[in-house]
Every structure is written in structure tokens, then in C-alpha cells.
């Protein structure tokens, strides 16, 4: 059912939920950097998770908000969304 979440979408969500701007290209390049280094704190990531849960109408795995890097996060979330299809 669900299309995987792209780096572009993650970039948008980070801006919306936490007011942090990291362009998609840079986010792609730094996908193994910690969210903290990108300016996203734990509440910011929680906000991103909340936005996705609203959008898909389904809870994400509890580990989603504990992901350290964008790559980890996208892998986990996209895995869960595909599995839920």
C-alpha cells in the first residue's frame, strides 16, 4: 500500500516538526550523521514520528523515535510501512 518515505519527505517533516532545515541533498549525504548533529533533538524526532503516524493513521514501531540517524530511521520506518501493507 504505502510508498516508502523519501529523504525529501523526511527533510520536510524535520522542518515542520522542529523548525530545522536540512536540504534533502545534504540529508542524503549525511544520512549516517546523528540526528543531534543535524539539529534534531529527541522531541524533534518524536514530532516527526507523530506527523507520520497522523499521515498513515497507524502507530510506528516504538524504536522509531530512538533511531540515531536518518538512514536508520528511514530503514526502520519504511520496513514497518511495507510490512504493514
Amino acid at each position, binding site marked *: 500500500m504505502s510508498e516508502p518515505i523519501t529523504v525529501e519527505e523526511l527533510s520536510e517533516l524535520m*522542518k515542520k*516538526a*522542529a*523548525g*530545522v*532545515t536540512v536540504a534533502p541533498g545534504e540529508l542524503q549525504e549525511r544520512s549516517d550523521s546523528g540526528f543531534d548533529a543535524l*539539529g534534531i533533538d529527541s*522531541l*524533534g524526532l*518524536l*514530532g516527526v514520528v*507523530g506527523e507520520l*503516524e*497522523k499521515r498513515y493513521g497507524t502507530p510506528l514501531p516504538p524504536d522509531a523515535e530512538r533511531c540515531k540517524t536518518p538512514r536508520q530511521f528511514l530503514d526502520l520506518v519504511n520496513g514497518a510501512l511495507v510490512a504493514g501493507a
Partner: protein
Amino acid sequence: MSEPQPRRAAVTGIGVIAPNGPSTESFWKSTQEGISVLDRVTREGCEHLPLRVAGEVRDFEPSEAVEERHLVQTDRFTHFALAASDLALDDARLGQADTGQAPFSVGVVTAAGSGGGEFGQRELQQLWGKGSRYVGPYQSIAWFYAASTGQISIRRGFKGPCSVVAADEAGGLDALAHAARAARRGTDVIVAGATEAPLAPYSMVCQLGYRELSTAQDPARAYRPFTAEACGFVPAEGGAMLVVEDERAARERGASVRATVAGHAATFTGASRWAESRHGLTRAIGGALEEAGCAPGEIDVVFADALGIPEADRAEALAIADALGAHGGRVPVTAPKTGIGRGYCAASVLDAAAAVLAMEHGLIPPTPNVFDVCHDLDLVTGRARAAELRTALIISRGLMGSNSALVLRRGTP
């Protein structure tokens, strides 16, 4: 071996975001000219409320003052605090390069009486309008009284002692005293003060329960303490942050010592028990003078609390007489807050900022909108009065019963 010299707390920087100016310079210019900026409330969603007059900060654009993440993550009172801290640190010539070398030597103390009401209201409307999933996680910290202290320290990387005073309007003075004690105990720099943003619908409705609130319609007549027409106080937003430093550390780095925090004391006499505040204030003033080693006759100017209800004004006038003796009837007293409103905890910090500026300029700012004083006080009205000012007394009371007094001495640059 001689005893080490006791450390003294100096004021080296001032940052103001006030209804009469979004900078220290504009605040002082307007304050010393006695300009009143009290006006009809224009904030969205507030126009229908019985609170008609307030001191709104209109010349402040948050997006120009703070980063986007702070716009999303923090309330207006924190935007004021971050912006005022930047101004104060710039004024003290303390850049990131200076504070970054010794992050554990820099702390933050703020006072807050109303917290992040506007942010909180928005999120609670999401909760009841759409559901809990629509409440953003930053609600958990943005409304909180401690938010500004936390955000200032995180944003600047300060790792010294950080704290928050939650003690009513008088908490503004308590925060400055707390900073001075931290400086004496060994922290080199403390960014200290208070900002408030109580002019949003939810916060305003909360204030409507205060019988001391003025609901007068005419901005020129809404806040006239110490007169027979006193009908309550007008609320305001904004505030000030000061840089309080160990005096020796300040001198060593070549900073200008603009004032020293000489004495402080605080008492508590109960919510809205204004007659009893006389004794509480007297005791607070006495304690502050004692700590400062200051005789009553040395006080050159008093910045009054000036609540604006007859019983409270009388108690304050009597407390000044009780604490200062015959000098109480001669010393110039002023309340510049009648031109900008009372910003809760921020009001007393703005008074402290005005006191430092008054001592520097040798000029006592007047009390706008006030004529025909009906108490035995030499209240400065009309226009500013030139005077040699070495020592200033600042008095503040809170609606919940706190009384504080702070003695500032003029610095030697």
C-alpha cells in the same frame, strides 16, 4: 596571608525588549522622555475581553531575532528572552568566542510568572479540537517557566549554574539577586533577568480574576498609581536580561562595570494583603540596605512598585517612610512602568535596567500619566529630573504576596 577579597557582582550588560522599544537605547530614550505607550489591546483573539489597555511589544519581529527552530519550539516569552540575552551579551562584549572558552563559568537565571501561555493555548486547542495526536512534543517544554533559562543556555552552550525563580513579579529582583550570589560564589558570568508574554487570549483570561487589574478604557487614565484616581495596573509584555559578572573578572577582561548589585532581601506577606505588604516591604528594604552596608540617607532614587490600587500604594508609601525615615519623604521616587505597563516578573528587571541607565545618565526618568500625587512622596512626574545618582533602591511586590528590594550602586567604568 591576607584574606582573599570578597567577590562582588557587577552589571556589565543590558538587553531590553520593551513595549517602548525593542532595544536598550530606544527603551531609555522613551523612558527618560516620559513617553507613555500604553494603548488599546490589539492582539488577535483579545479584543472582546474586558481588559482594554496593555503594554504590547509591537516593534519586535521574532523571525529576525531568533532561529527558525526557536520559532517552532518555543513561546513568545522565550523569543523575548533569547533576543534580550543576545543584546545584553553584545552590550557586555561577551561573544561566543569568550564564553565558549569557559562554558562552566557562565550561568543563566530567569524569573517567569506566566510561562508560555500562547504556545500552550495553541497546543491545547489542537488537543480538544483534533485530538492528542495533534499536540506537538515541544508543548512539553515550551509552556514551562524554566523554558527560557534552558533555551538560552543550550543555544549559547553555557554550562554554569542555571536556575529559575518562580516568585511573582518580585521574582525579577530575586533572579538578579540570585545571579549576584552565584557570582560571589564563583561563577564568572550570569545572564539574568525576566521576560513575559501574557498578552494572549488564554493568559489574559487568567488575569481577569485579579482584582488589581485595571479594566479602564482610556490608556492615559488606566494606570495611575499614587493618585486618587488609581484603578489598578495595566499588564505588559517584554522584559530585560542583564549580564551579571564577578567584578574582578569583568575588569580583567576590560569590561565596563556599569553598576554593582549591593544588597537584596525578600519577604512574603500573602496574596493581595496589601495593608500587610507595608511591613513586608519595610523589612525587605531594611534587609537590602543592611546587606549593602547602605544608610537610608545614601539612597538617591527609589524605583517604586507602584501597583496602582489605593491600599497598596498607601502601604508602599508608608513602607518607604518606615524604612528610610525622614529621608523617605525627600528621596526622589519614580515609577516609569506607568508608561509601559507592568510585565509581571519582567517589570522589576526593567526597573533595574532603568536604574542602571538613570545612574549612568544622572537623570531620574518620570512617571508618565501620573499627576496630583496623594501620598507623602517626592514622585518624579512630568519630565526627567537631573540628579547625581550613586545608589538606587528598586522595590517590587507580587500579586501572590512576595516583596523584594534591591540596592544597586553606580559602577566605575
